[in-house]
């Protein structure tokens, strides 16, 4: 099996690629347009410097050779979503070529403008040019993938990298868009216009299966119907439109000097993959934990902050990965969706590290911190949440529980150890969880 993909990534610049309309914002149709992105006669493009530099950074991160001269071209075809009936893209000399990322060859990376958004409506179509002119980078891989799963893993790594570079605009409806080329036994099939990571994998899985049974005798272009979960044959265009490329005469040549490259290289932060390696080496984290933490740029930042403030690497990793992420994912949230006070987390972890509170108390405090910030140390003191080492208090609570639960006590006497946990739970409740479970059980056993 051979798979190759072409991914379109929307850049998170403030303005569009060739005009000063807002890149994001109002979704009221045709409210973020101007003469340029509407393709009015007389309008002219002007290249967004930030978009250009972001594209170069991605090319560097993908290991591409950066061309020292690059330019734009007109790609001509007719469609209602194309404001000028040509797209300003790059043809002969793109920003980057011949890279490698996570073991996959990167054929090229180039900049281009997004067409408008089109809605089919009966015998007509409705067009919203808000999206027209949005900056896109197109990344084309070599057909190096051996399975749909490979593609999924690669894309996740790529998304992490794009997030670290802060170039990527992640929206619910249109995150990554891709075309994929896949051949199993026979000829290559191109699946066009797949939206989002999940769909890309679904489409490839489906097509891989389909090609197992139906021998692909000709090259074909297919579409992906995400509702039906199937690829479908797209009517072969009678004659493929010739794009008739010419150099974009309204834009000059762009040189990428050594100085610019150096400056941009310096601006690239430590990327996820490097962090993961470093965590394994320096903090002795296992591969999975290192991956999980470094894959989330916000989590990695929090993690490193806690270590900076004196929390042991292993402890911080355990609590952030197991408990914090656990709580968040229960509510389908990510760290970036909540506003957590880093210092409060440090306070909490310190208390755990110094054995001042039980895990149970810590978990409850963490859950509360996710909802709203508060002074951790103050609350622990106020509500007397510190571990009680005074066994006298614990013993008192145990006696009360034993008194109140004579049936359960009988069961324990008869040998049912599991009920001990039930009793322990009651003691915990009575003592607000500040007793260590093992100590409580020991005392209960003694008393019973």
């Amino acid at each position, binding site marked *: 099996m051979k798979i190759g993909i072409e991914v379109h990534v929307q850049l998170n610049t403030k303005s569009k690629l060739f005009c000063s309309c807002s890149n994001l914002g109002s979704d009221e149709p045709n409210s*973020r347009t101007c003469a340029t992105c509407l393709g009015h006669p007389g309008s002219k493009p002007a290249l967004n410097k930030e978009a250009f530099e972001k594209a170069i950074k991605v090319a560097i991160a993908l290991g591409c050779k950066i061309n020292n001269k690059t330019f734009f071209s007109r790609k001509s075809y007719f469609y209602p979503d194309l404001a000028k009936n040509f797209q300003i893209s790059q043809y002969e000399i793109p920003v980057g070529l011949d890279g490698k990322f996570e073991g996959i060859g990167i054929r090229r990376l180039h900049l281009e403008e997004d067409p408008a958004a089109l809605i*089919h409506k009966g*015998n007509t179509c*409705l067009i919203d040019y808000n999206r027209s002119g949005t900056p896109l980078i197109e990344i084309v891989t070599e057909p190096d993938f051996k399975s749909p799963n490979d593609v999924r893993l690669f894309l996740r790594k790529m998304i992490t990298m794009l997030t670290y570079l802060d170039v990527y605009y992640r929206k619910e409806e249109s995150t990554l868009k891709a075309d994929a080329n896949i051949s199993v036994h026979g000829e290559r099939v191109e699946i066009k216009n797949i939206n989002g990571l999940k769909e890309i994998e679904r489409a490839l899985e489906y097509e891989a299966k389909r090609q197992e049974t139906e021998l692909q005798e000709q090259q074909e272009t297919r579409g992906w119907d995400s509702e039906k979960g199937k690829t479908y044959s797209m009517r072969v265009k009678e004659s493929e439109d010739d794009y008739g490329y010419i150099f974009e*005469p309204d834009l*000059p040549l762009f040189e990428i000097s050594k100085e610019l490259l150096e400056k941009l290289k310096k601006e690239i932060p430590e990327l996820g993959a490097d962090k993961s390696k470093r965590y394994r080496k320096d903090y002795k984290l296992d591969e999975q934990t290192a991956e999980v933490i470094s894959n989330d740029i916000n989590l990695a930042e929090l993690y490193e902050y806690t270590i900076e403030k004196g929390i042991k690497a292993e402890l911080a990793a355990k609590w952030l990965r197991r408990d914090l992420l656990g709580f968040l994912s229960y509510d389908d949230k990510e760290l970036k969706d909540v506003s957590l006070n880093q210092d409060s987390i440090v306070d909490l972890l310190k208390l755990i590290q110094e054995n001042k509170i039980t895990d149970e108390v810590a978990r409850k405090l963490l859950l509360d911190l996710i909802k709203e910030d508060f002074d951790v140390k103050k609350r622990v003191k106020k509500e007397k949440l510190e571990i009680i080492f005074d066994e006298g208090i614990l013993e008192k609570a145990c006696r009360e529980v034993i008194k109140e639960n004579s049936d359960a006590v009988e069961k324990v006497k008869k040998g049912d150890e599991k009920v001990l946990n039930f009793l322990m739970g009651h003691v915990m409740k009575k003592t607000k969880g500040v007793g260590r479970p093992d100590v409580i059980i020991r005392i209960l056993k003694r008393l019973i």
Partner: protein
Amino acid sequence: MRLDKELVLRIAKNARLNLTEPEIKEFLPELKEVLDKFSELSKADIPSNVNASFQPIEVKNIFREDKIEKCLTQEEALKNAKHKNDGYFKGPRAI
């Protein structure tokens, strides 16, 4: 240059032009005459190290700062369009 009716029709289709029979009849010899003249370029000696001139003067590295400026209102954007609906431009069937 072999410019025949078939090629002209293919080009016209690419350019979204419907040529009538009389138009094709009229255009064919005219286009042939022009292309014959253009084909003389093949006689020019162009050394391999010559670059294409994107513009006749040298311009390079012209950028725009990434900032947002005032844009058109929805009404202004749609003003020149005959076919519109509910804030959208309306176009012909697109599938």
